[in-house]
C-alpha cells in the first residue's frame, strides 16, 4: 500500500509538472484580469485618477442610448446576416455534395478561399472596392444600374448592407465546410431507399438532409451569432473609420466599448461594465449550445 501511495503521488506530481506552465500563464493573463474586472466596474476614471462609484457605472449604462443603439445594431446584423449566410452555405454544400462530381474539390477550395483572409485585410479590400469613386460604383454605372455613385460606406442603410455582404463573403465558405463534413456523415443508403420509394430531390432535402444536419446547423448558428455579437474589425475598418466617433449606422457594442476605453474617454470602469453585457449574452448563447448540442451527442 505504501508503495502504491508513493507511486500515486509520483503520478500526481508529474501531472502537475506538465500542466504547470499553462496554469501559470492562465492565472496571470486570464484569471487575474477577469477577477480584477470586478474591481474595475466599481470605479470611475477622471483623467488618470479613479474613485469608487459603486453601481454608478451600471446606472450610467442603462441610460446610455448610444450603447444600446450599438448593441441593437449587433442584433439587426445578426438577425439578417446569419440566416442568409447559413442558407447559402447549406445550398452550396448540397450542390457540391449531391449535385456535381467533376471539379468538386476545386470548387470547395475556391469557396473556402475567403476564409483565409485576415479580417482587416478583407475589410480594407472591400472598403476600397466600395468607395464612392471605387470599382463597384463604376461598374454599376457602366452597366446602367446606377445613375450616380452611391455611398456604400456612409449611407445608414447601405453601410449595413455593406457589412452584411462583407461578412457573408468572408464566412459562407467557412460554414460550408462544416456542412460538407455533416453531409459526408449521412449514409448514402438512406437516399437510395428514398429514391426507391419515389421521393423527389426536394423532398429528400427537406425530409433527410435537413433533419440530419440540424446539429451542424445549430453549431454554425451559435458560433456565427456569437461572432456577430463581438463584431469589431469590420465596422472599425470598413464603415466607421473616424476613430473618435461613438455613433454610426454600423456601430457595434464591441466597437463602442473599445472607443470609450481607448479613443474617447479612457474610462475603463465604464467600458468594463458594458463588456459585462456582452459576457452575459455570450454566456446565454453558450448555454443554448450546451443544452441543445450537448444533449444531442448523448
Amino acid at each position, binding site marked *: 500500500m505504501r508503495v502504491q501511495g508513493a507511486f500515486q503521488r509520483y503520478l500526481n506530481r508529474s*501531472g502537475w*509538472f*506538465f*500542466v504547470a*506552465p*499553462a496554469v501559470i*500563464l492562465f492565472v*496571470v*493573463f486570464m484569471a487575474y*484580469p*477577469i477577477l*480584477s*474586472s470586478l474591481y*474595475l466596474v466599481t470605479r470611475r476614471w477622471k483623467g488618470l485618477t479613479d474613485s469608487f462609484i459603486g453601481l454608478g457605472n451600471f446606472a450610467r449604462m442603462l441610460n446610455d442610448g448610444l450603447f444600446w443603439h450599438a448593441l441593437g445594431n449587433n442584433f439587426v446584423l445578426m438577425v439578417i446576416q446569419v440566416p442568409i449566410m447559413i442558407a447559402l452555405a447549406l445550398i*452550396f454544400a448540397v*450542390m*457540391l*455534395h*449531391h449535385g*456535381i*462530381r467533376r*471539379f468538386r474539390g476545386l*470548387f470547395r*477550395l475556391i*469557396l473556402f*478561399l*475567403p*476564409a*483565409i483572409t*485576415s*479580417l*482587416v*485585410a*478583407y475589410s*480594407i479590400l472591400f472598403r*476600397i*472596392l466600395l*468607395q464612392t*469613386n*471605387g*470599382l463597384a460604383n*463604376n461598374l454599376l454605372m457602366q452597366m446602367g444600374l446606377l445613375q450616380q455613385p452611391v455611398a456604400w460606406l456612409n449611407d445608414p442603410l447601405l453601410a449595413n448592407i455593406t457589412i452584411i455582404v462583407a461578412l457573408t463573403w468572408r464566412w459562407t465558405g467557412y460554414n460550408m465546410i*462544416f456542412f460538407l463534413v455533416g453531409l459526408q456523415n449521412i449514409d448514402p443508403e438512406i*437516399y*437510395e431507399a428514398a*429514391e426507391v420509394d419515389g421521393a423527389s430531390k426536394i423532398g429528400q432535402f427537406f425530409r433527410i438532409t435537413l433533419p440530419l444536419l440540424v446539429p451542424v446547423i445549430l453549431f454554425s448558428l451559435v458560433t456565427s451569432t*456569437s*461572432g456577430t*455579437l*463581438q*463584431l*469589431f*474589425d469590420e465596422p472599425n*475598418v470598413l464603415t466607421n473609420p473616424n476613430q473618435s466617433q461613438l455613433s454610426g449606422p454600423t456601430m457595434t457594442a*464591441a466597437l463602442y*466599448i473599445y472607443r470609450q*476605453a481607448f479613443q474617447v474617454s479612457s474610462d475603463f470602469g465604464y467600458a468594463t461594465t458594458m*463588456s459585462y453585457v*456582452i*459576457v452575459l449574452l455570450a454566456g446565454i448563447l453558450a448555454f443554448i449550445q450546451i443544452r441543445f448540442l450537448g444533449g444531442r451527442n448523448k
Partner: protein
Amino acid sequence: MSQVRARFSYARVFLYLILSVVSFLCVFPFIWMVLGMTLNPNEVVKGTLIPGDQFLVNWGKATGPYNLLLFGFNSLFIAVVTVVLGVTVNAMAAYGFDKFHSRAREWLFGVFLLTLIMPQIAVILPLFRLISAFGILDTYWAIILPFTMSAFVIFFLRQNFQMFPKEIVEAARVDGAGELRIFTQIALPSMKAGIASAAILMFITQWNSYLWPLITILSDKTKTLPLAMFSMVNAYTVEYGGLMVIITVSLLPVLIVFLAMQKHFVAGLVGSIK
C-alpha cells in the same frame, strides 16, 4: 454518390453555372488585389483590370516609407514565437490533463473550457491594465505572452492525446523512461497531425490579430502588418498600390500553408474565432 450520373442535364449545367459565378465572386477581390500591385493609386481605386507597370514603384513604396519588411518581420516574429512557446505549453498541458488523472486537474480543465466563452472585448480591458502595470506595453511580449496559453488548443490537443494509448506510456515507464522523455520522444512524435493543426491555428490567430495589437502597440518599431495596413488606409493620402503590396504579402504565408496543408489547415481554422 449513386445519384450523380455522368449524363448531360440542364440542371447540372445550371449548377456549374451558379458555382462558377460564386467562385468568381470569391476569387475576384484576390485578383483585383494582385493586379492592384502593378497599378498607380488612381487606377486601383477606379478598378482597372489589366496589369500595369507600377509594381517596382509600389514595391519600393511598400518597403521604403511604409516599412513592409520591418512590419513583416514583427508579425512573423510574434507569430513564430507564440507558436513555439504555445505548442510546447499547450501540448504539455493537454498531455498532463489526459494522461495523469486527478480531480483537481479535471476541475481546472473545466475552468479553462469555461473561459472559451469569454468575449475578447471583456478580457482585453483588464488585461491591458495588467500589461501596462508590467511595463511591457509596446513590446513583442505584450502580444505573445497573453496568447501563448490557449484553452482551445489544450482542448483540441487533449482530444488528440486521447487516441494515444495509455498502455504505451505505462510500458515505457516500466522500462525506466522518465516522464519528460516519454512525452517528448514517444507521445509527441505520434501526434504530428494534431500538433500541425494546433501550430497552424496559433500562427494564423497571431498573424491576423488586430484588436489586441491595436491597443498595445504604440510605435512603428513593434507594429504588425494588420496595423500597418489599417493606418495606411486611414491616412490622408492613401498609397493604394503600396497598400496592395502589403496586403498581398500579409496573405501569402496563410495562402501557402493553406494550399500545402489543406487538411490540417481546415482542422486548425475550425477552432479559430470570428
